[in-house]
């Protein structure tokens, strides 16, 4: 069990950007549905009516626009931002790291720590732990965590009705004496192929064979596309997320039911309903954004906070958030916010 309590740091603000373009799962054509259910049944079961997608935007573009808005609202001088962590499975290029590009594009100082992290659904929680660990030294006073996915990499990938695109930015600042953030983090790499892109990495480089479509559980995929063992992931999520929440609360001696909000990775409605029920959470404390944004991978927790809790985060609030999925990897974090700066979701135009 990996537990961390990282003190002397607070979340100052959260922002999110999504493509302006909305795609409705019932009206759109060419989506990759399985042959064994209709689009209407799919929407009813997954809880995803529509997603924001784009033919031109990368995850970093969405993060960039969210970051510009948040930095302006916080009135942070850019030269005081000393670290940037970019969490995504869809970097701009194979090389170099996208965090380097964002440092320059945002006009941050060259005295800036910048690194990429390749996690998915657990990525926001992991990214927070990385950046809070850096800041706990007291030597980095302001930092940005940029987290998101836009699944635009190979032809065919962008027709999945479940996944939406989003880029988020979480601004953290050093504050001596702040309670900080408490984490429980876990990994089970034996499930590496539960959510999997077979070709395109160094293990299995892209070849002409990679683009031949094959039937995977009634849906058509080529080997450059992400495929998911849906039932395995479902089973993993409903058992692991509640255990992780309980483990964190038990380790640090608090009652998890005392939290004001429980924000889970927006996997699908069915999975999140089971998790909510198993933890006996009141539904009004479990915000959700998947109906209008889909599963946005690592961005889903901060996107849910930004889109669902506007006007509710001025006072002191206690959050419990849990991300779980591809890896397999999971993380739960507990923290308090006060006077959280949180602009409305930024709608990003095509390039």
């Amino acid at each position, binding site marked *: 069990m990996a537990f961390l309590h990282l003190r002397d740091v607070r979340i100052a603000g959260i922002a999110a950007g999504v493509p302006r373009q909305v795609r409705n799962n019932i009206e759109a054509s060419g989506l990759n549905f399985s042959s064994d*259910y209709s689009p209407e049944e799919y929407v009813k079961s997954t809880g995803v009516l529509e997603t924001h997608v784009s033919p031109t935007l990368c995850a970093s573009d969405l993060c960039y626009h969210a970051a510009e808005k948040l930095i302006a609202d916080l009135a942070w001088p850019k030269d005081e931002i000393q670290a940037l962590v970019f969490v995504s499975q869809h970097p701009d290029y194979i090389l170099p790291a996208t965090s380097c590009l964002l440092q320059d594009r945002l006009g941050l100082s060259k005295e800036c720590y910048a690194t990429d992290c390749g996690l998915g659904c657990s990525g926001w929680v992991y990214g927070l732990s990385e950046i809070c660990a850096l800041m706990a030294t007291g030597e980095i006073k302001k930092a940005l965590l940029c987290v998101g996915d836009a699944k635009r990499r190979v032809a065919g990938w962008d027709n999945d009705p479940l996944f939406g695109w989003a880029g988020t930015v979480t601004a953290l600042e050093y504050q001596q004496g702040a309670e900080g953030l408490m984490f429980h983090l876990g990994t089970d790499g034996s499930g590496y192929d539960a959510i999997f892109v077979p070709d395109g990495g160094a293990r299995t480089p892209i070849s002409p064979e990679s683009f031949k479509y094959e039937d995977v559980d009634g849906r058509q995929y080529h080997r450059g596309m992400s495929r998911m063992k849906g039932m395995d992931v479902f089973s993993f999520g409903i058992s692991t997320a509640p255990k992780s929440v309980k483990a964190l609360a038990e380790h640090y001696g608090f009652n998890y039911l005392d939290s004001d909000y429980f924000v889970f990775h927006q996997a699908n409605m069915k999975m999140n309903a089971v998790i909510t029920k198993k933890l006996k959470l009141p539904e009004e404390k479990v915000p959700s954004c998947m109906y209008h944004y889909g599963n946005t991978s690592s961005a889903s927790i901060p996107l849910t906070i930004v889109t669902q809790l506007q006007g509710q985060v001025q006072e002191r609030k206690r959050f419990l958030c849990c991300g779980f999925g591809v890896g397999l990897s999971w993380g739960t974090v507990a923290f308090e916010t006060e006077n959280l700066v949180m602009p409305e979701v930024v709608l990003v135009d095509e390039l």
Partner: protein
Amino acid sequence: MELNEFVAHFAEQFEETDASEFTPATKYHELDEWSSLVGLSIIAMVDEEYGVALKGNDVKSSVTIEDLFNVVKERQ
């Protein structure tokens, strides 16, 4: 763990198929209403009622409801 109770819980995951159609020998993949989405409900039911985490292959490779019952029973 009792077989008839398992069959009843299994039947509850279907909306359109009448409960009387379900027996231990029902080949559930052949039901009109069966889909991978119903499979998720079965996994959730087994988790809640029996505390067993099924894998996708357990649901796919079992043929009858009794086959799946036996998988769950072994894991308890």
